[in-house]
């Protein structure tokens, strides 16, 4: 279709036929290639990169979990510090606010600090009312003068507090058992000591020192710790017998405990309380 006429058309076609420069051509063609190449490359790499990232993440998490697991159950971690940790916390609770904590200046470990922090929380409450309980005040002044008497006093209070702690722990454990197994029997039987002994030993240590200070955390896996709690309960009962002066019964119970659990390693702190006297 020619709407301009032949002569005009011919005259126009006779005009110079300009073209864009080669550099301009190259720039436009390069841009056109980039426009379609970019998303293709992204699509090509998106899936492999995502999979690789997930694998690396999963591997890292698994490795970390495996590295951390033996550390938690290692006997070395809890072999000696818990004894030191359990001792200072108890007298602090028993002595109340006015009496200075005897172990406050001792070297701290992480677990000791945690235990103390909890104990100190309880101390703070009466300390806010010094006028209500002025009686312990002279003790503060007398303490440096009579270190032996104070030590004796502390030991006595420590024993008392242990009994209180044991009662508390037993009560909390009962509560947990009721919550975890409302319709189940009170406590399952202890597993065969020969097969479950190493794992149970690690858990026992953890429970023996962590449960009285952090019952909520221990309650999370109540079902898994049931056999261990049974042993603890028995030991606590023996300790109670010792405190009540029923040494023969305690000896018998301890012998029975040993017979039932020949491989069970009684934690040091617990042994101090249940050993024959």
């Amino acid at each position, binding site marked *: *279709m020619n*709407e*301009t*006429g032949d*002569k*005009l*058309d011919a*005259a*126009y076609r*006779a*005009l*110079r*036929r*300009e*073209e*864009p*420069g080669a550099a*301009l*051509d190259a*720039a*436009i*063609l390069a*841009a*056109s*290639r980039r*426009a*379609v*190449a970019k998303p*293709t490359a992204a699509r090509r790499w998106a899936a492999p990169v995502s999979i690789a990232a997930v694998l690396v993440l999963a591997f890292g998490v698994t490795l970390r979990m495996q590295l951390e697991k033996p550390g938690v159950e290692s006997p070395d971690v809890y072999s000696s510090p818990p004894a030191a940790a359990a001792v200072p916390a108890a007298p602090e609770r028993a002595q109340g606010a006015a009496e200075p904590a005897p172990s406050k200046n001792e070297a701290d470990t992480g677990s000791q600090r945690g235990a103390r922090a909890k104990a100190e929380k309880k101390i703070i409450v009466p300390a806010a009312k010094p006028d209500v309980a002025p009686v312990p005040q002279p003790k503060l002044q007398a303490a440096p003068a009579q270190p032996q008497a104070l030590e004796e006093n502390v030991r006595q209070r420590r024993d008392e507090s242990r009994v209180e702690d044991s009662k508390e722990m037993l009560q909390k454990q009962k509560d947990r058992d009721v919550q975890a197994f409302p319709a189940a029997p009170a406590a399952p039987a202890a597993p065969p000591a020969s097969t479950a002994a190493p794992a149970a030993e690690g858990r026992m240590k953890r429970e023996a020192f962590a449960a009285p200070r952090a019952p909520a955390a221990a309650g999370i896996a109540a079902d898994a710790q049931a056999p261990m709690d049974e042993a603890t309960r028995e030991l606590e009962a023996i300790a109670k017998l010792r405190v009540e002066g029923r040494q023969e019964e305690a000896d018998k119970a301890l012998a029975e405990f040993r017979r039932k659990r020949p491989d069970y390693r009684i934690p040091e702190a617990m042994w101090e309380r249940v050993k024959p006297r």
Partner: protein
Amino acid sequence: MPASDEQLMLAYAGGDATAFEALYARHKGPLFRFVLRSVKAHAQAEELFQEIWMRAIEARVRYRPEAKFTTWLYTIAHNRMVDHWRAKGLSLVSLDDEEHAAAEPVAPPSAEPHANLEASRAAARLSEAIAALPLAQREAFLLHMEGDLTAAEIAAATGTNEEAAKSRLRYATAKLKEAIGDE
């Protein structure tokens, strides 16, 4: 049988870069002349030409084959030219004949020097007449001559109705014929 413009454009939108190369080779000359004869300077024409193609590249996924490719391409060109003219305050721009005359290739020796001279003069008159056309008429004429668009397609590309496009083309043709002595 070579692929149509529409097929090439669809292939390019699907990721085939070579389809665009074929499309560009077909249309780069006419589009460049359309832009060059619409604006004053060569450098400006190159810049506008590049921007038009960039817009076409960016809009590739929105291309639908219902429209003729040239209509679609010259619609993009028209929109870019409108932006350009707006930036210039809608002033009429003319083709700088003297600037291009310097770049004209030397005509080869001919057995009919008088005929060549007459042809050169006619081309110069035509170029001047094109540059002197009102903006809308010049655009319609160039779209018809370079883009090979019909009046209806010119109307579609410039966003006007077909009658207006026909009218512009008719006026432009009449003026240019008068300028080259073809009345």
